[in-house]
């Protein structure tokens, strides 16, 4: 336990800290400025497309937690399932995206927004009308390449660095 470098180590560290004094801080003043999130963000909600859904329940089978509940009945005239109940408990969901990947008809999307906190736990359980797409509930591009190309690019912290030769 000796001082081996005669105080030069401390001086080098302090020079580096001084250099940082003149760099632009990397803080983003939320909520006035928000960064653009990734196009494939697995945001805090699920978005359901009622027209394309056939009630096959592949999503419910692939969910590891079992949060999706589907009840269908048979409609003999149109020769398809009628989806009577499609309920997602967003409080129990872990937003892994396995259901979105599994859907063969591209009827389920992950949400794009991430500020979806609610005041009551009961409001987290969403069913048929609450899951539809709207202006506040946009779908994200996770496992949906057609939607991914329409979304804006992500802001990267790397863009601020300059590459020195």
């Amino acid at each position: 336990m000796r001082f081996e470098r005669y105080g030069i180590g401390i001086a080098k560290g302090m020079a580096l800290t001084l250099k940082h004094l003149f760099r632009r801080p990397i803080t983003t003043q939320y909520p006035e400025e928000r960064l653009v999130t990734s196009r494939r963000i697995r945001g805090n909600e699920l978005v359901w497309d009622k027209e394309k859904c056939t009630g096959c329940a592949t999503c419910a089978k692939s969910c590891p937690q079992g949060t999706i509940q589907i009840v269908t009945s048979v409609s003999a005239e149109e020769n398809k399932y009628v989806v009577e109940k499609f309920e997602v408990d967003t409080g129990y969901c872990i937003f892994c995206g396995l259901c979105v990947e599994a859907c063969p008809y591209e009827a389920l999307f992950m949400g794009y927004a991430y500020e979806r906190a609610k005041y009551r736990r009961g409001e987290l359980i969403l069913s048929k009308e609450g899951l539809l797409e709207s202006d506040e509930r946009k779908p994200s591009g996770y496992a949906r390449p057609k939607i991914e190309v329409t979304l804006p690019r992500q802001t990267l912290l790397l863009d601020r660095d300059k590459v020195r030769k």
Partner: protein
Amino acid sequence: MTVFDPGFSPSSGYGQTLPPDWPGGFWLHWGVFVVIILVFVLAMVMGFIYLERRGIGRFQVRLGPNRVGPFGVLQPVADAIKVLLKEDIIPAKGDKWVHWLAPVVAFVPVVMLFAVVPFQDGALLADLNIGILYVVAISSISVVGIFMAGWGSNNKFSLLGAMRTVAQEVSYEIPLVLSILGVVLIAGSLSLNDIVKVQSIPFILLQPLGFLVYFIGACAEINRTPFDLLEADSEIVAGFHTEYSGMKFALFYLVEYAEALAISAIITTLFLGGWRGPVLPPFLWFLIKVVGVFFLIFWIRSTIPRVRVDQLMAFAWKCLLPLALINLLITGVEVLVLPEALPWTIIFVNLAIMAVLIALWSKFFQLGGGRVEV
């Protein structure tokens, strides 16, 4: 039976010499300067709190507080209001009077220190002819306040922490005083006003080793990183102020920054030339130098890790004390033997000796113990 006659009385102003252009009597001078000192201390402490938080934020590539008021200037005010509104908790089994008195005993000496610091030529509360001795004596009293805080809390970890702090502060006083003596030898007087008037060349050049020893000792006195074992959050205790809340905690917090302000003021006066400077009014130069020293203090805080407690004590006794003694010896030799030598010779000789000493000490001294066999 003789009545003890001190030779001065209230009507003659206790033998104080006022500056020749001062309008009123002694008590007006006293009153004005008490107000100036109190306002200065409180305003500058608030300014220091703000500066430190913004400054450390910028060192760490982030912004500091910037929401309260324009550029976050009212942040210390918000802190003060928050602290005032908190509940004042007193431990049930602790010693109530000691617990109540401790912040007062810790805070009052720090404010009293400013009585002898010259803001301008002759502009100080009391131009004592034993100025530096007064400073050293008064600053030892706040150590007692810290120990009272640890004792009155009825918490064995607070007591341990307080004892550690007392050991630290007492050990670092000795190199501090010895390095001040070097300055006194060159200046030839103990009065702070005279020390500033003599500094045509700032003493930091004439006494580099003294400055270094005083700076490190002062950082240890005020419990700042790298010596802030008490505020460390990797310790299992929160130090002597665990059991304090509300206004008493605010007083301890103020004590920390007021001591930093006091140390900066003393360093400016002793080593950097006080209020001397070319163009601007002297009071402004004083402020600039004080803020500069404080910048150095919190720049060190944001960079360097903490030392361990046995390394701390070893550093004081094995490193700083011998260096301070050798500095005193060399200064004494220079003052006696070379009183008419050119200042530049002395500067170079001192710098060379400092470099050699630091190199020697770094190579040969071992700090702190190792592993203990159990």
